[in-house]
């Protein structure tokens, strides 16, 4: 059998993970210092308007478009972004009324002689009131916590061992933090699909961890050996499967990333990272955590017994 010395090298993995998580999380205050906000909240989270419009010709957003917006909607504090390879322009602004956006559209249509059908020219026209932003953040946190707690309960019952549940959920939180770091580092917009991406990775990585724990559960009864041996053997037996499954899943997500439109890309990229993190953590983090918990418990029990003995 392939012998992966997971337990022997566990400190290395713990340190590696801590560094990765720290880098991602430190990106948040760093972003804030640069005045960009800790995370790149999409308008669904922070409120605002977005218009994506095809002007049919190449323009300079700053000199050509900005003055028009400032004239039609003062204090919109617009941000303009060209969609590379197209003549499309994305305008992000503070919350606006639909009348204001209609006026802006008409002003642009007049200047650039846009005669086609409006539904083809104006491909996105959205507005979110800032009032719902707090709600979205709450929901994201609630979803992750509720998911984690329910999984903890299920695994603890099925494996008849709280430590399995606890280490699986810790590994899962590890992935959530890494994903969050990716969102902070790469300034990926946080929107509705953020929550979906997070829970997909939670589902994927917990599934991955369970396959390995299932082996440990089985081998524990069969192999007479130390925890260290049992874990290394179990991980060795399941590692091919872990890699094969992550390949089939990764191929799908990577293709989505390369072929998809921008909203799909924004969803696919964190998933790519999440799947890699999920596979890594189920092999190198989850089992070592379980090992540490077992060790801690044994020591704790021994101390108790020892105290009792001295008390006599």
């Amino acid at each position, binding site marked *: 059998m392939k012998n992966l010395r997971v337990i022997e090298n566990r400190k290395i993995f713990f340190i590696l993970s801590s560094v990765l998580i720290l880098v991602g999380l430190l990106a948040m205050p760093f972003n804030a210092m640069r005045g960009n906000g800790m995370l790149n909240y999409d308008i669904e989270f922070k409120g605002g308007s977005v218009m994506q419009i095809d002007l049919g010709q190449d323009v300079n957003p700053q000199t050509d478009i900005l003055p028009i917006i400032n004239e039609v909607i003062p204090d919109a504090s617009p941000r303009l972004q060209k969609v590379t390879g197209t003549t499309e322009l994305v305008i992000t602004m503070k919350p606006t009324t*639909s009348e204001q956006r209609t006026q802006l559209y008409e002003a642009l249509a007049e200047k650039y002689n846009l005669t086609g059908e409006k539904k083809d020219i*104006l491909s996105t026209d959205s507005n979110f009131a800032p009032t719902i932003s707090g709600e979205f953040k709450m929901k994201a946190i609630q979803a992750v916590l509720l998911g984690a707690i329910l999984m903890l309960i*299920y695994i603890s019952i099925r494996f008849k061992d709280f430590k399995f549940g606890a280490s699986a959920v810790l590994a899962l939180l590890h992935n959530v933090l890494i994903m969050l770091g990716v969102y902070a580092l790469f300034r990926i917009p946080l929107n509705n699909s953020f929550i979906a991406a997070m829970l997909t990775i939670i589902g994927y990585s917990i599934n991955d961890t369970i396959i390995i724990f*299932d082996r440990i559960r*089985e081998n524990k009864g069969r192999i007479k050996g130390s925890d260290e041996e049992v874990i290394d053997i179990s991980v060795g037996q399941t590692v091919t499967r872990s890699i094969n499954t992550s390949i089939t899943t990764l191929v799908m997500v990577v293709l989505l990333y390369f072929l998809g439109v921008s909203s799909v890309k924004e969803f696919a990229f964190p998933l790519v990272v999440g799947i890699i993190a999920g596979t890594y953590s189920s092999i190198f983090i989850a089992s070592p955590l379980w090992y540490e918990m077992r060790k801690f418990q044994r020591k704790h029990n021994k101390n108790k017994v020892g105290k009792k003995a001295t008390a006599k």
Partner: protein
Amino acid sequence: MKKGNQKPKSIVLFVLMLVVAAGLSYLAYFGVGENNLFGIENIRLGLDLQGGVNIVYEAAIENPTEEDMDAAIQMIRTRLDKEGYTEADAAKEGTNRIRVDIPGVEDAQAAIDSIGAAAMLKFFDQEGNEILTGKNVEKATPVVVPNNLGAQEPAVSIKMDAEGTKIFSEFTKNNIGKPIFIKLDDQVISQASISDHISNGEGMISGSFTTDEAKQLAERIEAGSLPFALNAISSKGVGAKLGMDALDTSIKAGVIGFIFILIFMVALYRFSGMASDIALVIYVALLLIVLSLTSATLTLPGIAGIILSIGMAVDANVIIFTRIKEELAVGRSVRSAIDAGFNKAFSAILDGNVTTLIAAGVLYTLGSGVIKSFATTLAIGIVVSMFTALVVTRILLKLLVEMGIDKPVLYGAKKHTEEGRA
């Protein structure tokens, strides 16, 4: 062993499975009959894929009553119908919000403007003179009253406020036998004739209503006298072209990935891989058929969810085949290795899928709109993939063995099985 009898029978069954896989794929792609029943044509596409507008309205007061919210939804529906948005849908979200989805609109901004304004309810006489407006109506409720013949029949009772009572009393006294019209946004929603002088401000509209019609009319009248304004807190408009691009590119990614996985599985697991490929084809077909039947709405994250689920669907098979390889390595026959492989893999597959179902359940409970659809797709995918991976693959592998394809090497075992159990 009655190998001689088994072989032709299992070949027939195997071919039958292939026919089933092909048939299901055909069914999923083309559907049956004029309405393409079971077919992908019937999968409802979300607004992000076919283009359209989604607006969320919020009542401008803290705790609107359920009746008022229903009335507000009714008002929006009336307007959507009037504007010709026949596929549009309005539904309550939470306690004080209404989500409106209008697929395939030409002008998103016009749609937002046309359904946003407050509703106008007015009472007119025969000559078209305005008698009362919605602000004079205190309450409209569906009731059941005995008619002339003594039978119970649905009706709508209207209660006016003080000013309304006075005007209404005056009007009914002088116009007995004449008609009165009720209009919501210039559309006549009811026409009645005055049968009595109504002095207490409590009118009753009866006629040949069904219970539902009476309820709808009451809600429409209430809509014209809503005690709160509706604010559009979010609106999202996606152009048809952008939606189409998103759909096309995602499907392309899915098809390429799917073909890759088919090849990957055969390369790795030979005949087992082939069995799982057939099961995977059945999985995708079944998933599409279920989506078509449940009229679930497919959104962009939903498609991403399906594509992801294809990647994960083979996981169960990978787990099983790894087990089968191991069993073969300790010298079991292919037949018993398959049984042992499935049995030993079951607990891991079950636990893994249940936890993913928990994630889908949480998403469904907490999410709204797009996220709900993603959760539904994910959950359906998990359940269907467990069926195809555990049941379909197993049947196929057994048939392969009975067909005489039973050399361990063909199922991914190493030639020299010196690797023992650790």
